[in-house]
């Protein structure tokens, strides 16, 4: 493990711990309600919001949704992107042409506005946000995986397997997928970071799941219910900081993984 991976994983572990803690609220830990917009105190370490709810409590509850939506949205988008990319890269011809055009078209259409429109039509719920991210955040992954699969297609070991008479299905599953897995997993980690930011953005706009408040939801209320104009900075600094740190942790981890990939191919070049 390199330094970046260690930093990333430590921060992410803390956030996961926080998310697990949310299940204990009400039984193991309890946060007292207080009056509207109380600043941080011993009783409410991060103060309270307009309803007198404890910010730390909301922060812990929000970590669950933010993390889960980020994780699941990234998972779906990576799976879709990897499959489309691998198929399009490995099977040339009509299939590649069609998938290639689809990838290009969705790379040009600005993703966030389209997500806003789609989320506005679907009723705001946890799974609908996951679906919106999964359906619309795959094109970059697909493009990267496709480029890799394209490269593999003319790799000597694939050519020799074809000459040996190995079937294409065998090659795709035994050789192409393992070889794009490195890129796909690095992309997945980066996508978690993006998905957390997207979820926060959608919730900030007011498209979040009202029954599963996230960090973005907290920012939404701070904006729309006047906490900002009241100057209650403790209501919106913690969730924004949480989003930034978590998203950054995944970026750092992703870059660490990517570096490892580069190193392995680099040492490959050094041999020859």
């Amino acid at each position, binding site marked *: 493990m390199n330094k970046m991976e260690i930093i990333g994983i430590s921060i992410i572990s803390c956030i996961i711990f926080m998310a697990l803690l949310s299940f204990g609220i009400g039984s193991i830990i309890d946060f007292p309600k207080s009056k509207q917009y109380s600043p941080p105190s011993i009783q409410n370490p991060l103060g309270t919001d307009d309803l007198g709810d404890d910010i730390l409590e909301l922060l812990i509850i929000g970590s669950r949704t933010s993390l889960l939506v980020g994780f699941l949205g990234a998972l779906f988008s990576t799976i879709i992107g990897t499959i489309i990319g691998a198929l399009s890269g490995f099977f040339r011809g009509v299939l590649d042409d069609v998938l290639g055009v689809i990838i290009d078209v969705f790379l040009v259409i600005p993703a966030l506005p389209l997500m806003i429109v789609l989320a506005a039509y679907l009723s705001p719920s946890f799974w609908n946000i996951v679906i919106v991210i999964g359906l619309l955040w795959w094109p970059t992954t697909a493009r990267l995986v496709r480029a890799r699969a394209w490269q593999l297609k003319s790799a*000597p070991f694939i050519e020799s397997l074809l000459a*040996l*008479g190995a079937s294409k299905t065998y090659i795709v599953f035994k*050789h192409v997928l*393992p070889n794009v897995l490195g890129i796909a997993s690095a992309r997945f980690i980066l996508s978690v970071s993006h998905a957390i930011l997207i979820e926060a953005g959608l919730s900030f706009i007011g498209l979040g799941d009202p029954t599963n408040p996230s960090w973005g939801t907290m920012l939404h209320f701070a904006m729309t219910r006047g906490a900002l104009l009241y100057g209650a900075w403790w209501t919106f600094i913690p969730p924004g900081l949480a989003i930034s740190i978590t998203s950054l942790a995944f970026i750092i981890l992703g870059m660490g993984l990517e570096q490892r990939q580069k190193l392995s191919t680099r040492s*490959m070049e050094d*041999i020859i």
Partner: protein
Amino acid sequence: MKLKNEPSREDVELTAINVSKIYGNKTLALDRVNFSIKKGERVCIVGESGSGKTTLAKILCGMIPPTSGEIRFLNKRIDEMSEMERRIFRIKVQYIPQLPDLALDPTWYLYDSLVEPLRIHKLIASKQEERDLVREICEMIGIRMEVLMRKPGNVSGGELQRVVIARAILLMPYILIADEPTSMLDPSLQAKIIKILLDIQSKYNMGMIFITHDLELAKYVSNRIFIMFKGKFVESGLTNEVLINPHHSYTKSLILNNTS
């Protein structure tokens, strides 16, 4: 290791008749080439990069189809073979690629890559038999067994090239096509690898095609030589005769460049 319907070993011949290859954007890579090799022969195809020698090699082992002309193996056109005959062709004509880079799947252990062709064609009855065969071949080629427990990224170029050779030899081919097998290695390793290939050739009485741009190497390894220039054979014959008494101006310039 014997295959069902394995042909008697003496009449093996791989032939290219009037083979041309045109790539998509109308570049003529091969222009009506005739070529043949029998078991036990050592043949060199010499040419500069881009002369079409790798294209010919890939067509000879069935990796890419020719645009026109035919490839015959055991007196049968390879595009008209039955499944059974085609399987024998795929096993008995083997190609060693030019670059050790990506010659084997970087995510696989070398052992698995090595025995993969055997497994694809279900040539081995038991794990024990497989291991014995691998041990025998590796000893002959000089591969330490612990190397096979690594992935391609963690071994040297020389070791990788040996595994690639072993992978082809495991199938006991009649015809082995080695495409610049040493061009990416340093000189001391080159000599070792060439010696291994020659030893194997004589031990199993294979037909071996060396593809190279190096006339010195050609002189050392081959009985017959083909000089390729811009997709055509400009000269061919016994190696000694061609190199001592070249007719074509291109051959002469090659010899001049090589000695200088």
